[in-house]
């Protein structure tokens, strides 16, 4: 069957939890696709019936509440595992040459998950929060100028914005994720898994790759870890879905702005509070811009975090900023931003 092609050697540390976080995120994306296909059988993207169909999924469709819960909680958990994966790469400086491009591909994957997947998914619920999210999308499309054309309502008058976002959620975003995942996995295979900082700093990995004789791990073991932890992720999402059923808000009232976005966007909401709608754009560009520059700022030859004090400070500042901004939003009242 050609499965023997998967029986190749990898570094021993590849088969540890921290180096499997990328694989766990990948398994989460598979769970999202499978549960998403099921949910799509019941969802009606027409604005006049969208919210009713979400209520149908939640209250009537067989196992609808459970699978909707798994879908939404998996999306949140995938963001967490992707961030932990990013954190591991940052701490071990695995973004250094020759892996700079793969760091950028990884960031694009994170952006596609958060701004593509979770944002469009929020709008599909078509309740008050969804409507306000869509209104923000339209305003941001105007701010983006030429690039915003595709995302704006004025792009076409033949189809409403909600069905277009639905198409983005079920076809465009997954397609982008697939292309980026192919590039990500190809580059990992091409460059090999990065050595540990200790191995690299000890000169055991010339050119940023361990020699074959030191790759004593086994890739099928890595796959086993991915599947095993993927099952744990699925079970965790299911448990959370049962204990905390996903709410559906009131029907949208266009005249008011009374909701906060999903917690994933809390840090951006704080920027919006301070700078108005433009703050969302500035905040996203600031965070992803700093992260994109990381491999090009960090030119130290060593990879141990203690040998990279500047990167340590940047990392701590980013984490603290994200947590503090999110907490500020969590405990602040809702403010109207739309004109």
């Amino acid at each position, binding site marked *: 069957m050609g499965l023997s092609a998967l029986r190749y050697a990898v570094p021993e540390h590849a088969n540890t939890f921290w180096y499997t976080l990328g694989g766990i995120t990948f398994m989460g994306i598979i769970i999202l696709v499978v549960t998403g296909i099921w949910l799509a059988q019941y969802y009606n993207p027409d604005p006049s019936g969208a919210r009713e169909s979400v209520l149908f999924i939640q209250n009537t469709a067989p196992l609808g509440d459970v699978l909707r819960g798994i879908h939404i909680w998996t999306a949140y958990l995938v963001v967490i595992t992707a961030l932990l994966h990013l954190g591991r790469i940052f701490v071990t400086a695995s973004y250094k040459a020759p892996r700079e491009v793969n760091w950028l591909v990884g960031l694009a994957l994170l952006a596609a998950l958060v701004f593509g997947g979770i944002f469009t998914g929020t709008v599909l619920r078509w309740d008050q929060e969804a409507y306000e999210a869509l209104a923000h999308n339209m305003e941001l499309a105007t701010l983006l100028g030429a690039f915003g*054309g595709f995302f704006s309502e004025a792009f076409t008058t033949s189809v409403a*914005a909600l069905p277009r976002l639905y198409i983005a959620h079920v076809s465009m975003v997954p397609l982008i994720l697939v292309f980026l995942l192919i590039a990500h996995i190809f580059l990992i295979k091409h460059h090999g898994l990065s050595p540990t900082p200790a191995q690299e700093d000890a000169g055991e990995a010339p050119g940023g790759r361990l020699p074959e004789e030191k790759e004593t791990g086994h890739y099928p073991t890595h796959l086993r870890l991915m*599947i*095993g*932890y993927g099952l744990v992720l699925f079970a965790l999402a299911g448990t959370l879905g049962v*204990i905390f059923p996903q709410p559906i808000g*009131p029907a949208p009232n266009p*005249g008011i702005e009374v909701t906060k976005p999903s917690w994933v966007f809390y840090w951006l909401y704080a920027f919006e509070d301070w700078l108005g709608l433009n703050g969302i754009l500035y905040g996203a560009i600031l965070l992803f811009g700093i992260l994109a520059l990381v491999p090009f700022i960090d030119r130290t030859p060593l990879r141990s975090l203690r040998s990279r004090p500047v990167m340590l400070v940047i990392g701590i500042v980013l984490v603290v900023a994200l947590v503090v901004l999110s907490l500020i939003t969590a405990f602040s009242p809702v403010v109207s931003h739309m004109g």
Partner: protein
Amino acid sequence: MKLKLIAAGTLTLALLALAPGLALAHGDETGVTVQPLTSKPDGVITVKGELLGPKSSVEVMVTGNGEDVDLGEVKANAEGDFTHEFRLPADLKPGTYQLKATGKKSATTQITVSEALAGGASSEKAGSGAMEQAPVIRQRPLRQSIGLIALFGVLAAAGMFFATMRRQKA
């Protein structure tokens, strides 16, 4: 050299991503927007038009779903811009409509008319900040919830067992 290649690659990708938008930007400079994006029959909408012809009389129409409704006429300013509120007909069927503003130049956008939005509320209520209650979410019976959690617990245990089995070496 490698840095230059990376920079060139990133720039190329960025330009490719921008291309569709840039292409669109060279299209019509006129524009019309409507707020809210979704309204209901008898709801008040705000229509903004841009560059439809200086001082022109702009006719605003809603078409679609077999209906062709003239909302009214408004005078554009010296730049050809206008902002005006219109009331949708009370008997407008739910669905997606094209909203067309025609002055010396014309522009179109879309608006969705939804019965679900109304919920028996008047348009004044919709604009006043009133909001209907969140719907009732069905709660599974406690036994079913416990059963599901137990099932997920077994799956998690199986996953942990599978992941932490003795690791093979190459």
